[in-house]
């Protein structure tokens, strides 16, 4: 008996200590104002507006037949327009982290649904670079981005709570677990169950889900006149209303201390597509995009199913365009057009082709990676168009350039055309990486990598059971819809591109863990 008591107590002592062991040090409590010198009043402001899941391929400004964004086209008249801008990946973690760190997913490693960047990038990002001279602020409605922003919070003066900007959450993590957001978010996801997990909480999860569903149906009934179909749902129990978001944003812009570098990441037009009633009847037309061959990685969505989904997405984009214009009008009224860089972009696109819907998949076709990038410079009154391929990793070095900071050597991008004096290298390869299934801490062994070296785009699938080692090659100039795969007929044609791509992957794998 004595022996049993002794063993159990010792064992329990050890177990008690287990959750506390090895966890990184608690949040730094030093106020940011003590860590960084005060902002410089003569600096122009920088405002980032990122709309999640906005494909350039569905924007009228970039040649889409439906007039989805007429207001953006007007804004373009006073901005630099990048017509061949590409995301770092095909979904939020990889795309956003590439924008914020200036590196590709094989470096920052935010590739899977556990979206934190590797530890060494916690102080290598947009906020770290701009904080000394700016009041830095950040807001997102996407939980995967919030996880990342929480990593950067020591460099963000005002990390705004997700629930402040028109987002309503019944989940405890958005308020209660804010100091340990990533773990709290995933702990709750496992307890509640998600599209990939069964719930670890066998009874309460069903009760919770039932309450969420009842609440959602009640909201749908109450708001049917405004949202005839869906109410935008970030996660079960989390809803976001774009009009309220924009109203909040207008106040936020008026009240932010200047000069500011503010990053706003909005959920719209992410699925479920939920345009307000006034946009609900738009695009009742005969438009039919080209039918493309079904891909090996199809999710079973056929052409006829995807047509109405595409239309709802286009309507939601038109809604975004209308509401974002209110923000631009306010900025104009406040006179901020004269002293502010306004950056409009997205983290990735959306697919409605080849039997592949949305963006949580393994493919890297243009609808998923081709994203908008417009930058208004202070006082800019004319439009400048750039057709050179650019990447999300180029935005951070451009911020360094305009703020007069040296470009850190870990950045993989270059200063965007329009902000540089040296000529642009048209043959510079840019990359998009999809590696959700790859080990976050290991070399790339199961992934899709796309490389654009104008006018060609080489896509490489490797490590998948269905496509263990596969290439596709397209000429984007002659075949922007990527219908004619040049690779099978003439692999030698792609030899140079292939060696560049494989060498880059090999180099990325060698560099793994070398960033300090």
């Amino acid at each position, binding site marked *: 008996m004595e022996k049993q008591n002794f063993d*159990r107590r010792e064992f329990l002592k050890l177990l008690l200590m287990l*959750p506390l062991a*090895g966890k990184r040090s*608690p949040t730094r409590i030093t106020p940011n104002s003590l860590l960084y010198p005060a902002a410089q009043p003569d600096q122009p402001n920088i405002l980032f507006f990122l709309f999640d899941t906005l494909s350039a391929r569905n924007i009228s400004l970039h040649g889409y037949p439906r007039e989805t964004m007429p207001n953006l086209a007007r804004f373009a008249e006073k901005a630099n327009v990048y017509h061949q801008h590409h995301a770092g990946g095909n979904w939020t973690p990889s795309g956003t982290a590439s924008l914020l760190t200036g590196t590709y997913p094989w470096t920052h490693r935010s590739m*899977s649904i556990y979206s934190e960047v590797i530890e060494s990038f916690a102080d290598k990002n947009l906020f770290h670079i701009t904080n000394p001279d700016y009041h830095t602020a950040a807001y997102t409605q996407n939980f995967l981005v919030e996880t990342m922003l929480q990593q950067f919070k020591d460099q963000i003066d005002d990390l705004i709570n997700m629930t402040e900007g028109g987002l309503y959450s019944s989940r405890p993590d958005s308020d*209660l677990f804010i100091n340990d957001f990533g*773990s709290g978010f995933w702990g709750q996801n*496992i307890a509640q169950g998600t599209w990939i997990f069964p719930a670890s*909480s066998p009874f309460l999860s069903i009760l919770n889900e039932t309450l969420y569903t009842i609440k*959602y149906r009640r909201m749908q009934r109450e708001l049917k006149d405004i949202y005839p179909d869906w109410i935008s749902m970030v996660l079960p129990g989390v809803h976001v209303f774009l009009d309220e978001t924009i109203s909040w944003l207008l106040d936020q812009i008026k009240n932010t201390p200047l000069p500011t570098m503010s990053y706003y990441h909005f959920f719209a037009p992410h699925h479920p597509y939920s345009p307000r009633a006034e946009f609900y009847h738009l695009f009742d037309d005969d438009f039919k995009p080209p039918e493309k061959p079904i891909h090996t990685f199809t999710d079973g969505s056929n052409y006829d199913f995807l047509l109405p989904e595409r239309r709802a997405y286009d309507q939601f984009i038109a809604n975004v365009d209308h509401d974002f214009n209110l923000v631009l009008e306010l900025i104009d009224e406040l006179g901020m057009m004269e002293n502010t860089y306004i950056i409009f972009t997205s983290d990735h696109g959306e697919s409605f082709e080849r039997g592949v819907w949305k963006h949580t998949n393994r493919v890297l076709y243009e609808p998923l990676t081709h994203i908008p990038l417009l930058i208004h410079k202070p006082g800019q009154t004319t439009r400048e168009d750039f057709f050179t391929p650019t990447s999300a990793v180029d935005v951070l070095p451009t911020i360094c350039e305009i703020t007069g900071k040296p470009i850190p050597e870990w950045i993989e991008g270059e200063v965007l055309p329009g902000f540089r004096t040296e000529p642009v290298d048209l043959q510079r390869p840019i990359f998009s990486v999809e590696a959700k299934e790859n080990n976050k801490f290991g070399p790339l062994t199961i992934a899709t990598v796309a490389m654009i070296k104008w006018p060609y785009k080489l896509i490489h699938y490797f490590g998948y059971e269905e496509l263990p080692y596969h290439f596709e090659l397209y000429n984007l100039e002659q075949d922007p819809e990527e219908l004619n795969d040049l690779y099978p007929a003439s692999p030698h044609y792609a030899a140079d591109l292939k060696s560049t791509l494989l060498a880059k992957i090999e180099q990325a794998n060698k560099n793994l863990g070398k960033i300090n």
Partner: protein
Amino acid sequence: MKRFPEKQEIIKSFLVILTVINSWAVIVFLYNFPGLIKQITISDLISVLAYVLLSALIESVIISLALLGLGFLLPAKFLRTDYAVRTLLLLILSVIYIIPFHIYIPRLSTLMFEAVVSIFIAMWSVLLIVELVLFHKIIPRYPKFKAGAVKIIDRITVLGAIYFFLDLSSLIYVTITNWS
């Protein structure tokens, strides 16, 4: 006070509930472990486990209170007598019933969920009533059955105590991390 079971029975029942709920939580966590270990660090993994165990503790407390409430309302012969044995049987049968639902629920859309969950809850309610009546008939008639269940409970409570400690340490960890 007569409407509640003996204190010892309540404690045993709570430890049984803790064991069943935590064991399911650990199974789900281990099911996710190969995916998790590829994507997050060991320290984050332990931290995530702390939140999972905390939710198991909350769930166990709520179930215990719900069963006590049920025992308070029902005639003693249905639940209050041999309280720990009856709650053990109720819980195990409910978990067996609920597992297929959890295996398929991630694949259900919102609309499907609504349709499935209402049928599920209705069937579960019927099953609970049938089980309560069945235990009422079986337990007094078969003392060996009851003795076997009591032995199981005695063993389970040891595991329940370990889970209780783990759950409490998770609660302390989450509290310190988020509100210190």
